[in-house]
């Protein structure tokens, strides 16, 4: 190591959340002017680490030093003041304000409360020129810019502070191919001025191209520190990320009958720009896993099948077409539910739960028609069925009248599954069903999902965690950039190989 102290040094960082130890002793060392890549599977602790660096979370243990001096990042403002800027995946720009106003948001160039717009525009133009984008006008409204241009504005904002370290969380996820080249040019320009970049990406080819060193996280621990980004073999990196130490307990698969009936047939499903000509089938009692990165189009596939997103192509549920051409026609999700589909969406709180309401009301939401006659609710039956489902799925605490927001993530997820056990289901679409769920509850959820399949329901499972897809699914579809690039029985795949495919798309 050089004599100069590293720009950033993190030692033994521990962060505990209720039920989960997200970080369990992470080390990170970033030098001036380098691009330091952070790699790890979902749940390895990358996001938590970023949040600690940006001041959003406080570590429970561990030391953070900037330029050799120990610091405490007590909040986002403190982090910015110390020269750490974060560019999130979902850019936090205000669409209605101009480029310059966004760049100086929160630290406006002002005198006596009056914004000095001319000065801000000039300073913004300088920053944009420095970033190689003099064509973006400071007075343009941000909402009218392309995603790539917005990202440049985000970086200009980071630079408008006296920044020494920029954290980029999957910056290329929203960019087209040629825009990525531009992004790299900017990153190089930054590092040549001594700014360090912590670069998070799942795409190994990018890391090879732009990265200097790599730190690999696994299960909240550092698996490797400061590997050379260009020369470390892919196999070594992948094997550092795989083989999780936490063992999940997967229920045993049942041998599938050779002539199981077909529940779902999807043909030529296309969502412009996101999903390209995807076709697959799901048999009765079969769990099909979609393995892919965030942004690979896997959630969009699920939403299009469910009628929650416009798409072209054909979706046939048990021989009945769900609307030709545009699958998400006027019937939309209501038709999908009526015909026997159910969805456990990715964002549990935002997309699935009625947080103010009881567990029982959340469970019965989609099946109210079953307890009603001419719209009149039979509350006794509703309550009885909710209670029974709470018991069947062992939702704890076992009180259906409790507000759902007081339950743990795993139990909330069980309630979302229970919602689809009301009435007859033929197909369940599960988008990241174990996100934010602790290890014990995961095993229970796996058992529930397998049991549903054994009862004849078809299941489409999306998960960022490759071991989960491999352990739970019967068949696996590997998705990359909106296409299915590989199909195989889960037993014929291993984690290493799948991870290799979804990150590089090379193994075919």
């Amino acid at each position, binding site marked *: 190591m050089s004599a100069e102290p590293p720009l950033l040094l993190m030692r033994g960082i521990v962060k505990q959340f209720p039920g989960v130890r997200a970080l369990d002793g992470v080390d990170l060392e970033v030098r001036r002017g380098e691009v330091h890549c952070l790699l790890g599977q979902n749940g390895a602790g990358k996001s938590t680490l970023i949040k600690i660096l940006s001041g959003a979370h406080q570590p429970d243990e561990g030391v953070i030093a900037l330029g050799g001096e120990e610091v405490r990042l007590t909040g986002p403002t403190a982090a910015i003041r110390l020269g750490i800027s974060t560019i999130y995946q979902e850019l936090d720009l205000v669409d209605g304000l101009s480029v310059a106003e966004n760049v100086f948001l929160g630290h406006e160039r002002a005198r006596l409360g009056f914004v000095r717009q001319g000065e801000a525009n000039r300073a913004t133009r300088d920053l944009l020129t420095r970033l190689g984008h003099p064509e973006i006008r400071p007075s343009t409204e941000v909402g009218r810019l392309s995603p790539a241009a917005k990202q440049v504005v985000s970086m200009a904002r980071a630079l408008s502070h006296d920044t020494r370290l920029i954290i980029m969380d999957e910056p290329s996820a929203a960019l087209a191919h040629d825009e990525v080249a531009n992004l790299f040019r900017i990153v190089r320009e930054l590092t040549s001025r001594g700014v360090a970049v912590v670069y998070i990406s799942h795409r190994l080819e990018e890391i090879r191209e732009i990265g200097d060193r790599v730190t690999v996280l696994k299960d909240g621990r550092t698996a490797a520190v400061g590997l050379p980004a260009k020369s470390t073999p892919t196999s070594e990196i992948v094997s550092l990320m795989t083989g999780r130490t936490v063992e999940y307990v997967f229920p045993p698969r049942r041998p599938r009958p050779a002539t199981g009936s077909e529940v779902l047939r999807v043909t030529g499903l296309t969502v412009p720009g996101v999903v390209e000509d995807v076709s697959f089938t799901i048999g009765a009692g079969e769990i099909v896993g979609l393995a892919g990165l965030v942004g690979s189009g896997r959630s969009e596939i699920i939403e299009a099948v469910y009628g929650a997103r416009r798409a072209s192509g054909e979706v046939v549920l048990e021989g009945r077409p769900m609307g030709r051409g545009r699958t998400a026609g006027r019937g939309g*999700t209501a038709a999908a539910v009526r015909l026997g589909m159910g969805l456990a*969406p990715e964002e549990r709180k935002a997309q699935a739960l009625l947080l103010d309401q009881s567990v029982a*009301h959340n469970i019965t939401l*989609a099946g109210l028609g079953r307890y009603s006659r001419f719209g009149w609710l039979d509350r006794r039956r509703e309550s*009885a069925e909710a209670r029974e489902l709470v018991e069947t799925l062992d939702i704890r605490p076992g009180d259906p009248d409790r507000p759902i927001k007081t339950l743990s993530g795993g139990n909330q997820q069980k309630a979302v599954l229970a919602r689809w056990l009301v009435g007859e289901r033929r197909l369940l679409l599960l988008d990241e069903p174990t996100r934010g769920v602790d290890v014990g509850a995961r095993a229970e959820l796996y058992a529930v999902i397998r049991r549903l399949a054994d009862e004849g329901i078809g299941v489409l499972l999306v998960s960022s965690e490759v071991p989960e897809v491999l352990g739970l699914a019967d068949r696996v579809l590997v998705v990359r950039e909106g296409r299915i690039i590989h199909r195989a029985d889960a037993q014929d795949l291993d984690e290493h190989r799948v991870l290799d495919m979804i990150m590089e798309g090379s193994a075919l």
Partner: protein
Amino acid sequence: MTDARGPKAHERSPADGTPPAAGEPHGGEARTGEAQTAGRTAAGAKAPVRGSSGPAGLARLGEARHLGLVLALVLLAAIGLVTRPENFATASNLVSILSLAATIGVITVGMTFVIIGGGIDLSVGAIMALASVWATTLATQSYGPFVMILCAVLVGTGAGLVNGFLISYGRMVPFIATLAMLVAARGLAQRMSDRKTQLIQQGNEVIVELSTTRVLGLPLLVYVFALVVAAGWVVLNRTTFGRRTYAVGGNPEAARLAGIDVRRHTMLLYALSGLCCGIAAVLIMARTTTGSSTHGDLYELDAIAAVIIGGTLLTGGRGSIIGSILGLLIFTLITNLFILNGLNTSDQLIAKGLIIIVAVLLQRRSLESRT
């Protein structure tokens, strides 16, 4: 094909009959909050506390969480008794309070649905005025009182449907769509009536009898009001429509993904509000014997205020009919007290404004203490 729960569903007998929690759980803290304010009042105010927290039946109806509001009402009544002992507790005064409350009360029921469903309806007063004018044109009146009533109800519902259509399928912000309706409906009412007050003609007095005929000492229109409240309560608490209203307002995305047709539901909510305005138009025609484009001026504000005071969240997903009605009665009682005591109407407005602020502050505190 397969019932996911398997045969077990039928083995277990229906549950022990414990009723599920009613939709909105935040009344408890509001009660303690307001109980402190009310603690300084006369001892007489405490009696009904013991009374209504006692029987489990009342608590099951969800009354318990409105104790704060009931206390406030009792407090106001006590003030009335102390300041105007000879006028306040008379039958005629109580009748006039209830008659006054009936018109806005019916509107408030519809407003409660709309707000719980995540929207707002600014056009209620104007729609009511339009319905009253349309129902009292000479042409309509020539068909007799029942056609007049039908006309008022249809005009109200129709205007509500237009609101709902613009909001759900035209993707307009509720505030803007109903603001446009407010202006336009009032304009149309002025045009139809030529800005003149239209009297109910001879032969159509059946409508006026709603306010003159009394049963058990109360005019019929108070019973209409009670009926609308009861129907609203039943729909909100005992039907799938009501349950879905909470879902659509609380988390529209979750409702959509659970297979609820959120757009159609939203449209129906505004139609329901319009229907209530139509009924309210009949009541105001009965009370004033006229239809006029000036009826219901600023009713939207009183109705929204009543709903807010009643503990319904302006962001949707939480609230109750009973709360709204109690909020409305509080408002009406204040007006009454000010009139009885010959006080300035300006001070009355100030008092009402303060009440809204206090109610919302107390509710927020109870919300925060719960999370």
